[in-house]
């Protein structure tokens, strides 16, 4: 098999994730949801273990688990007597620990824990690309259709409500889209590094943008540059691919700071 044939599915899968991570990462920054994203990502490991144990395909089980966790967190936030970051800290690390235990207990299956924690992009094949492209299409369509409502609740929920925006529905939609993206990214950069793929490109895009749309689009571009750079680094230097993508993204971010405006 030629290098191109070998690298094409990982490249397309990584690009699909980075494309969607641009606008979603912008919302994560604007709404300060980084810790929330981490919690969903850590929970995804438990979802993956549950899927493997039940003999279900990876993506459906992780997507279902992540979305259920997102809804549970929305409900818990209202009832929990301590601050939200305390709640997220408890859930995040508990699900991560439980996920690691669950994966280690899986009978008879050799599961590479490292692949889930830090990604295993080079191992993805065409079925993964199909799943990720479908997920990306769903998220991008929803983002386009609900863009103004999503921005409006990000700016001020009370003003949005008075202007007729269904605030709670829109907020839950955003959470579910984030859960879907994180579930999809589990094989790209792994559960420990997913949030960085959301935050770093969007942060790099901030200084170079005058509108929310510019920032979202530029974050997509920077994320895709990081995916290409990380894959190249991994291919030639034989470094782990997930961490290589994140380090490249960080380098792109630092370079964005040097751009004079």
């Amino acid at each position, binding site marked *: 098999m030629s290098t191109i044939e070998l690298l094409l599915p990982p490249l397309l899968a990584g690009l699909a994730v980075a494309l969607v991570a641009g606008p979603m990462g912008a919302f994560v920054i604007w709404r300060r949801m980084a810790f929330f994203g981490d919690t969903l990502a850590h929970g995804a490991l438990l979802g993956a273990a549950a899927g493997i144990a039940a003999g279900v395909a990876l993506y459906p089980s992780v997507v279902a688990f992540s979305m259920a966790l997102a809804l549970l967190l929305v409900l818990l936030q209202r009832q929990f007597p301590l601050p939200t970051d305390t709640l997220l800290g408890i859930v995040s690390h508990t699900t991560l620990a439980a996920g690691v235990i669950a994966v280690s207990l899986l009978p008879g299956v050799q599961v590479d824990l490292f692949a889930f924690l830090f990604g295993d992009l080079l191992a993805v094949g065409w079925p993964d690309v199909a799943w990720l492209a479908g997920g990306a299409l769903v998220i991008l369509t929803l983002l386009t259709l609900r863009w103004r409502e999503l921005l409006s609740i990000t*700016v*001020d929920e009370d003003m949005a409500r*008075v202007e007729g925006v269904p605030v709670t529905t829109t907020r839950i939609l955003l959470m579910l889209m984030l859960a879907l993206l994180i579930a999809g990214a589990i094989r790209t950069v792994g559960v420990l590094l997913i949030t960085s793929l959301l935050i770093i490109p969007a942060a790099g895009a901030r200084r170079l943008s005058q509108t929310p749309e510019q920032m979202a689009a530029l974050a997509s571009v920077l994320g895709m540059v990081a995916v290409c750079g990380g894959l190249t680094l991994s291919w030639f230097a034989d470094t782990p691919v997930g961490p290589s993508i994140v380090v490249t993204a960080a380098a792109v971010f630092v370079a964005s700071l040097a751009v004079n405006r």
Partner: protein
Amino acid sequence: MDASEPLVAVRGACVTLGDTRALEHVDLEIHPGEIVTLLGPNGAGKTTLARAVLGSQPLDAGEVWRKPGLRMGYMPQRIHLDRTLPLTVDRFLWLGAPEKPAQRLQALERTGIAQLAPRPVQKLSGGEMQRVLLARALLRKPDLLVLDEPAQGVDVAGQSQLYQLLSGIRDELGCAILMISHDLHLVMAATDQVICMQHHVCCSGTPEAVRRNPAFHDLFPGHSELVRQLAVYTHEHDHAHDLHGDGAEHHEHH
């Protein structure tokens, strides 16, 4: 007494936020074209009541009735806009009126800040931001404008300009205004009805009638200077339009 149908009627509203009773059996009616000022110390439940009127605050008991088809505009006390969100003033208004660029410019002109349209929202001064929030509320062509501490972060000269602006807008649109204030200075000339509250309604009526009410003085202990200023002020007000009957009601404390 206004015999017309109210725009909004709050009846027996009770709200508990965490461990505190924010609203205890509050009644409120707002009639077309009327300016109602909610007055009370910090933490008296004024914002909670305004949010209940808007439908943003669920009630534990009681009800809020709104006239069918009522259009409301809301100017919050402040908004927490993250620095990381690149948003110009025009795009901020776009969130409220996406397909109406001409009306957005018109609203900015009416509030005297047309030149700010291309500026990032985060770079505005307190007074400029208040006018931007007001412009977005006006885009709705509201029957009722709800203003939460509209003079927040505005200097004294700016405050009087802002109140002239509000008064002019009320006359043009014929809309009712529900305004929150914790500052006795800010009870404006055109206020028709003052409602003093401390979780429940302590007293309500015309500014003059409220001034005479002992419950009003109890509400602001140690503010005798401010109370006197209000007294002088409402005295002048009586001369200007002597239309109000002695409409003050004294509500027993629960």
